[in-house]
C-alpha cells in the first residue's frame, strides 16, 4: 500500500515480555527464506490490522545485522498513546501473519568515525542494540551510555553489560545518576561521532551541549521517536484526488489520507525523513507542525506540511494530494 518501501510477508515467531513495560517481538519470513540484510540503526514499519483500521508504526530493528533469520523489535507499552503499542502488546501472538516494510535506515553509523559515542534513554536503546552488534563484529570502537528510570526498566541493560563489559555505562534516575555530559563530550578523541536516541528532552539537551562545546553538527546524529500527536479533528480537501477527508483526534493526517485510498509516500512516519512532504494550496487557520524536516522558514510560510506528524486548527485547508 505504500509507495515508500517494499513489503515483507512475515509471521510472528515469538513474543517475549522483557519487563513491565517492554515486550519483544520476533518475525520470520513466511516462506522460510532469510530476511534482507540491514545496517545498524535501521527500522521497519509494522502494519497492524486493527479491525477496520490499519496502523503503521516504525520500530528499530534490534537484532544483529549479521543474522537475518529473524527480525526483532521491542515495543514499549504506551497506555495513553494512539493505540499502536497497545495493539502490539494485546493482540499480537506467535503465529500471527503480519506485513513489515523493508528496512530503512535514517540513523546510520558514520563509518568514518574513529570512535562511536552512543547515548541512549529508555526505549531509545533499541537502535543501539543492532549498531553495537555490528561494530562488535568488526572490532569497532564504541562506548554506550544508557540512562533509564530504574534498574528493572533498564531494557537489555544486563544483556549489553554482559556482551560489552566496560564499554557500557548505566545510569538510573531513581538513584540520581546522571550522565556527566560536559565532561564526557570534552574528553573524546578527535574523530569521535556522537549518537543519541531517546526522549526529545534528552536529544535536545545532548545536541545543545555538543554544539556549545564545539562539536561539528555533522558528527552529531540523533533519532527522534516522535509519534504523531493527537489533537482536535479537522477537515482537509485533497485537490489532486478531489477528496474531502476528516482527520480524527487520534489519527494523523497521513493516516487519514491513506484511509481515503490515496497512497502518499512515507519512510519514517515521524517527521524526519522528508518523504511525505506535501504542498499547501490554501488554508485559513494555523498549523501545528511537529516535524523536524521543514526549515523554520518553511513553517512560517505555511506552504508545506508533513502529514505524518503535523496537524491543523482552523476553518479550511486544501492540500495538493
Amino acid at each position: 500500500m505504500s509507495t515508500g518501501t517494499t513489503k515483507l510477508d512475515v509471521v510472528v515467531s515469538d513474543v517475549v515480555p522483557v519487563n513491565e513495560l517492554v515486550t519483544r517481538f520476533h518475525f520470520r519470513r513466511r516462506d522460510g527464506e532469510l530476511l534482507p540484510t540491514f545496517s545498524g540503526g535501521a527500522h521497519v514499519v509494522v502494519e497492524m490490522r486493527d479491525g477496520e483500521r490499519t496502523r503503521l508504526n516504525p520500530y528499530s530493528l534490534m537484532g544483529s545485522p549479521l543474522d537475518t533469520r529473524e527480525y526483532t523489535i521491542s515495543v514499549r507499552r504506551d497506555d495513553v498513546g494512539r493505540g499502536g503499542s497497545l495493539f502490539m502488546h494485546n493482540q499480537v501472538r506467535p503465529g500471527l501473519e503480519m506485513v513489515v516494510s523493508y528496512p530503512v535506515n535514517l540513523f546510520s553509523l558514520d563509518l568514518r568515525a574513529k570512535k562511536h559515542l552512543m547515548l541512549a534513554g529508555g526505549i531509545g536503546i533499541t537502535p543501539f542494540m543492532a549498531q553495537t552488534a555490528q561494530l562488535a563484529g568488526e572490532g569497532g570502537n564504541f562506548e554506550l551510555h544508557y540512562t533509564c528510570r530504574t534498574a528493572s526498566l533498564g531494557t537489555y541493560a544486563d544483556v549489553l553489560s554482559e556482551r560489552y563489559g566496560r564499554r557500557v555505562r548505566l545510569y538510573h534516575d531513581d538513584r540520581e545518576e546522571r550522565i556527566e555530559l560536559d565532561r564526557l563530550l570534552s574528553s573524546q578523541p578527535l574523530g569521535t561521532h556522537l549518537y543519541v536516541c531517546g526522549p526529545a528532552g534528552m536529544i535536545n539537551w545532548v545536541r545543545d551541549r555538543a554544539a556549545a562545546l564545539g562539536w561539528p553538527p555533522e558528527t552529531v546524529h540523533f533519532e527522534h521517536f516522535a509519534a504523531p500527536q493527537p489533537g482536535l479533528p479537522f477537515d482537509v480537501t485533497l485537490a489532486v484526488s478531489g477528496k474531502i477527508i476528516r482527520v480524527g483526534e487520534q489519527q494523523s493526517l497521513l493516516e487519514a489520507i491513506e484511509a481515503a485510498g490515496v497512497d502518499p509516500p512515507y519512510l519514517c512516519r515521524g517527521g524526519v525523513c522528508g518523504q511525505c512532504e506535501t504542498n499547501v494550496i490554501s488554508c485559513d487557520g494555523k498549523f501545528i507542525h511537529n516535524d523536524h524536516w521543514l526549515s523554520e522558514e518553511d513553517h512560517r510560510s505555511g506552504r508545506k506540511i508533513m502529514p505524518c506528524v503535523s496537524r491543523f486548527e482552523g476553518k479550511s485547508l486544501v492540500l495538493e494530494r
Partner: protein
Amino acid sequence: MGITFRKETFRDDFTFRNSPEHIRRFPFPFHEDSYMYAVNIEPHVVGPKGSVLENLIDVDEHYVAEMQDRAMVLAEDPLRCQSLPHMTLAGWDLLELLMEQQALGYPEHFTLTRDGDRWRWINRPLGIDDTFTFGDTSTLPYGPMEYITRQSQGDFCILDQRDGNLWMDAGMVTTQADWSLDFDIGMNFFEWHAPVPLAHEKGIFVRALKFLTNIQQGKPARRLNWTMTINPRLDTSPENYHKWGPDRTTVTPENVGDKVHLRVELQSFWRLPRSNGIVFPIRCYLIKMDELVTQPKWARRLHRVIRDLPEELANYKGLTRYRPTLVEWLSKLDDGSPTSAGFGPD
C-alpha cells in the same frame, strides 16, 4: 544456451562490433524527435525478454573484451579504482549484489554457492573459481569492490550517505565519458555535478539528490544518459584526453558511419544493505552510426534530435566539431515521415 562472447578491441584497431541481435537490443535513448534535459528517473525493474533490461545487471557479448580492456586501463593507471577506508563494508555489499545478480541472470556462466561465510564464486567466461570468506578481505586477491568490478561490465560509483548528502567515496571507473574518479573522489553530490550547464537553474539537482537519498533497499531506480564518442573507445577519461580528444577532428563525410558512436549509459541506483551506502552502476553501450541506421526509425529520429539540440548542450557533450557532418549524413536517411512513439525499433 549462453552468450557467445566476442573477441574485440576498444582501442588501436577498434574491432568492436554489435551483432545483429545486439543492435536490436540497443537501449536507444530518445522516445521522441527532440531531447530535453530532465530527471527521467524510473524504478529499475525487469523489462522485456531480449532487452538490456531482461536482467537488472546486464551481461552481454562484449563482457570478456570489456573486462580485458578494464584490466589494461588499471595496469596503466591504478587510480581508476579507489576506495576510502570507511567504504570496505560497502564493497562487500556490492560484491554480494553483483554476484547474486549475475548468477541469477546467467547461471550457465556464473555460479555462487554460500555456506555461511564461506562463499564459492565461479566465473566461467573469465576462468575464475575462487573460494573466500565473506567479510574477510585477506581471502580475496583484491579488495571486495575491486575484485567484483574487475568482473562486471560498467563503471561503479559507491556513495556514502551522510548529512543529507551523497559522497563519492569509492569507485571503479574505467569506461567513463570524460570525467575522473581521481578528481571527484571525496566530493559530494553538488560538487561533482558542478560542471553541468543548464541544469542548476532548474533545481534539478536538488530534486535528484532528494530522490536518491530516499532510494530504498529492494527498490532500485534507473535512468538513461547519452553522449557521442568517436571510435568505439570505452575509456574516454580526462587523463587520456590526448588520445581521444583529437579523434573528433578526424570525422569526414566518408567515415561518419564507422567512426561516430552513440554512447548510452544505463545508470542504476541501489541502496546497499550493510553500509547503507548507494551504488551507482553506469553501464555503457556503444553503437556505430552504420549499425544504428539499420533501424530506419532510429536513423530518422536521431537526425532530428542532433539537428535540433541546443547549442550549449551540444558543446557540453563535445559534439560541436563534427555535428554538421553528422547531421548532413543522417539527413539523407530522414525521409520526413513521422516516427512512432517509444524507444524501440519498428
